[in-house]
Structure formats: C-alpha cells, structure tokens
C-alpha cells in the first residue's frame, strides 16, 4: 500500500504529517517512510534509527574523448537540451543541462562520447523498530530532482515488499517532481491550511491528482485559523477530509525543535487515528 503525502503550497505540514503518521502507524505495523523531497529533505530531522545502507546515486552524462572525435557536430545537433556545444574543434558538455537520454553518446559515429556516472545524490536507509526510513539528498547545484526521485522509488520497490504501509513525503508544487513522487501511489493525502493561499494551491493539487486519476483525501493543518473556504470547497467537490490538525503555537514550538507531536498532543493523536482507520479500510478493500 503506497500513500503519498503532497500539497500544492509549501510549508503546510507535509513533513509533520508524514513523520508523525509514520511513527504512529509503526507502533503496530511495519511502515516505510520515504522522503521524496530530495531538494530539501526534512523528514530525517524528525526520525532517527540505525543505518542500514548508504548509497551514492549517479546520473549518466556524456564525456568527450577528443582523440576519437572527428568532429562532425552530430552530438550538438541531436541534443534537445543545449547540453552540448561545439566550438570549432572543441565539444563542451554542460552536465547540469543533460537529461541522460543517451542520444549523443549512442548516435556518435566514432563513440567519442561515452556515458560516465556523475554524483547526483546520497541515499540513506535507517531502521528503528518497525519503522524504516529512506531519504535521498540532491547534490547542491544539481537541477533535476526527477531522476533521483525515481531512483529512490526503485530502491524502495527493491527492498520492501508490497504488503507494507509505505508513506512518501512528496515535494511541494504541481510540476514534474510532484508527478514523479505521486505517480505510483495508491492513495494521496493532500495537506493544506485553511487560508486563501492554502485553498488556491489545494485546488491546483486537486486538479493534478484528478489528471493522474488518483484517489485522494485532504488533511487540514492549522485548523482554526483563516476561514471555512477550504471546508466548503472539499464538501462541494466531495473530497473526504481525513483529519483536522488544530492550530496551536505549542505544536509549532515542538516542531521547531525537531520533535514529534502526537505523543504530547492527544488531539493530534486522535486525528492520526482517523487517518489510520481510513488507510486500513482502503488496504482491506484493496486486498479483498
């Protein structure tokens, strides 16, 4: 069972929900929490555990070998991303623009552009009791999050069976990294806050999930501030509201220290229970 936690707007509480829900569920079930916000991975600040595995992740980029180059210019012509520029007899590769499509390398008539690995990020896998945690951190200066997200998914699919509850902390927004992070999910939890920004970005996220034909529900964080427009929107659109996490400065203070919240706030724990019930019912229905 794969559940992605996403939101249009950043800072609505995705990581708070992901880490608290994962720890709460792991009291009784085997759970894997996967941080797919590879640009700014934060779940690891709240989860500790024993290291299981660390892997360096690479992307493939072409490397020019001058002695084999004729230079015919085909590589520059085939690259749709301007990652290869020919200046008289010199070929320059711009790795940050490369999408690793291999076209230049494989179409080069003299094999002068072999693909070599370039470090893209570092994956870490930790375990504590029933909770496993996987994160992948993008190297600063690497622009493309998608390949690292997809490698993280491959890792999780390789090492964890489908029977487990898998929670994915997705990046904010609605563009390619979010699609990559949610496309395998059986269910998506959209976290929002009851404010105009929250509502505006929730609508974008809802449209995205509809386009991906995903089942989804909403969790309202900081419930009590702002207004009722998010509630009204969800009612009108028949979107299930799985939980309402109350607005409370003390929750923000606890979060600021990198601590989990639900053990100290029974009201939050009750809300997590609601989400648990919802998830377990989905899981039962899926296995029937």
């Amino acid at each position: 069972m794969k559940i992605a936690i996403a939101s249009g707007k950043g800072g609505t509480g995705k990581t708070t929900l992901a880490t608290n829900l994962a720890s709460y569920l792991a009291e009784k079930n085997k759970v894997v929490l996967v941080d797919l916000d590879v640009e700014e991975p934060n779940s690891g600040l709240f989860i500790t555990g024993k290291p299981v595995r660390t892997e360096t992740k690479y992307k493939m980029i072409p490397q020019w070998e001058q002695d084999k180059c004729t230079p015919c210019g085909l590589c520059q012509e085939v690259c749709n991303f301007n990652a290869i520029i020919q200046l008289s007899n010199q070929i320059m590769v711009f790795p940050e623009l490369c999408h690793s499509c291999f076209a230049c390398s494989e179409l080069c008539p003299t094999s002068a552009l072999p693909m070599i690995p370039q470090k893209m990020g570092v994956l870490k896998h930790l375990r504590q009791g029933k909770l496993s945690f996987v994160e992948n951190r993008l190297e600063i200066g690497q622009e493309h999050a998608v390949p690292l997200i997809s490698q993280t998914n491959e890792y999780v699919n390789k090492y964890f069976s489908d029977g487990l509850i898998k929670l994915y902390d997705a990046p904010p927004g609605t563009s390619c990294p979010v699609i990559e992070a949610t496309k395998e999910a059986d269910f998506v939890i959209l976290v929002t806050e009851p404010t105009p920004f929250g509502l505006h970005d929730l609508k974008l996220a809802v449209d995205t999930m509809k386009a991906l034909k995903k089942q989804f529900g909403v969790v309202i964080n900081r419930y009590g501030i702002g207004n009722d427009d998010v509630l009204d929107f969800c009612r009108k659109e028949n979107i299930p509201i799985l939980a309402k996490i109350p607005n409370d400065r003390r929750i923000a203070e606890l979060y600021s220290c990198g601590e989990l919240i639900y053990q100290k706030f029974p009201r939050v724990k009750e809300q997590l229970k609601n989400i648990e019930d919802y998830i377990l019912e989905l899981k039962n229905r899926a296995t029937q």
Partner: protein
Amino acid sequence: MKEIVVISGKGGTGKTCITASFAYLGGKDIVVADCDVDAADMHLLLHPDFGKSEDFYSGVIAKIDQDKCTGCGECADVCRFNAIPVIDGQYTVKPLNCEGCGYCARICPTDAITMEEQNVGEWYISTTKAGNSMVHARLGIGAENSGKLVTKVKNIAKDIAERTNKNYVLIDGSPGIGCPVVASLSGANFVVLITEPTVSGLHDLKRVYQLVKKFNIKAGCIINKSDLNPQLSDQIVEYLINESIVHIASLPYDETFTEAMTIGQTIVEYDKNNLKTILTESWEKIIQLNENGRKTK
C-alpha cells in the same frame, strides 16, 4: 536596474507575504515578478488586473503516427524514460514520462514520430493595486520546464523595468534548490532569504545558501516567527554572521500574517502590531544595501 530575489528553501516561511509587502511599499517604482510559477500566490494579495495574457510553449513531446508505425519497437528500446509502452498492441507515448529528448523520432526507420511543442502554461502582464507592473504565470499541470517559465517571467519583468526606467525588479522565487530556483537566481543582484527558527528552516536555509554562493550573489536574511524558538533564532543569527549574510530583520510569530491574507491584504496595508514598521525598515535597508553596492561598482 537591479534584480532582488526572495527565496527560502523551505516552503511556508512567509516568503510570499513578505515579498508582497515589499511590492506594496515599492509601488510604482518597482516591477514585480512572481517566479513561484508552481504555486503562484502573490496575486491573492496584490490583486493584479491580468491585463495581458499569453500562452507559454516550451519543450516538445513525442507523438507517434500509428499509420506509419510498423511496430518495430526501436523507439521503446532507445527511450531511457520508459515513455513508450505497448498499449492495446500499439507503441504509445506516455506524455508525463516523455522528456522530449527526441531520440526516438531521430531513429524511427519510418519517420512515424514527430516532436510536438507543448503548451505548458500562461503568463500575464498586469498592474497591481499598488501600481506595480507585475509579471506572473500559471504553469500547466505536471508541466516540465518550470525553470524556463521562470526565466520567461523574469525576462519580461526586466524588459518592462528597462523600458519604463524602473530601478528594481522584485522576484518571488520558489521553494527548493532545483531548476526553478536556479533560474530565478541566475543574473540576480541581491538575494533575500526568508527563514524561520525551526530545525527544518535552518537546514533548508543552509542548503539554499550553498546554492546562492555558487552564484556569488550578496544576500540578506529575514528571520520570521523568530520568537517561536529563541535558541534556534540565535543559532541562525550566528550562521548569518559566519557566512557574512546581512541580518535584515527578525519578525515575531504573529497570526496577523494569516489575518491579512484572509482578507486579501498585504501585511503593511493591514497594519496591525508593529509588523509594518519592521517591514518598512527592512525594505529601506534592502534598497540601501543595493544602492551602496552600486556606488562601489
């Protein structure tokens, strides 16, 4: 003309509310660009008139002409993105997987594949209620190339600033450290980092500042919600000193942010508590830092 970019690494630190306040204070003298094209929210505070709009085309994706396709499968073999599965016995492009590299089109023996331009969003030139010219955009769902749309929005804003003799372009950047952020930083003169005293806030600030350093751009920082965790606030201030980042201001944890947003106002208009004073002084300080920079050049 100078470009001031506001970024935060982490989302939800108050970046857009603060940027909109600066836009309001700058008024007619500045051009505003909302480069958080993924989740553009600044229009909810500045109420631009959506004066002019244009479609944004960027990137291409493969399309297979089934009449010409012989089903040889070479396209699927070379595709590194698993974008050409066989569906109902036909090789079919999955648009969300296609990166637009064009490798398949190039090697198809029967020329059955063409690369088609994608409409990935819309951009607008508006006038806001504060009298700013504002350039903003809406990115299509799941669209690629948000970095290119950011560059587009920024370039149009720069054009307008140059044509109308404005001194500043104020840019609201996106969260993260990936391509849209890189696009908003390139060519910038000054970066305003908005952070909060939470372990995530500091963690993300450090990552995004490492990126800023690669561009050699001078930076200042505003610590929002600073009294939420005074100890961490002190740690942030220490980090700023070590990195020679100007500490522009600290704002208190204040639900006024939400109250103002709920009625569609910037914090400086709403004018409750002393937030307006702090933000006005912050904006003056940012301008001063940029004016000084100009003299030394």
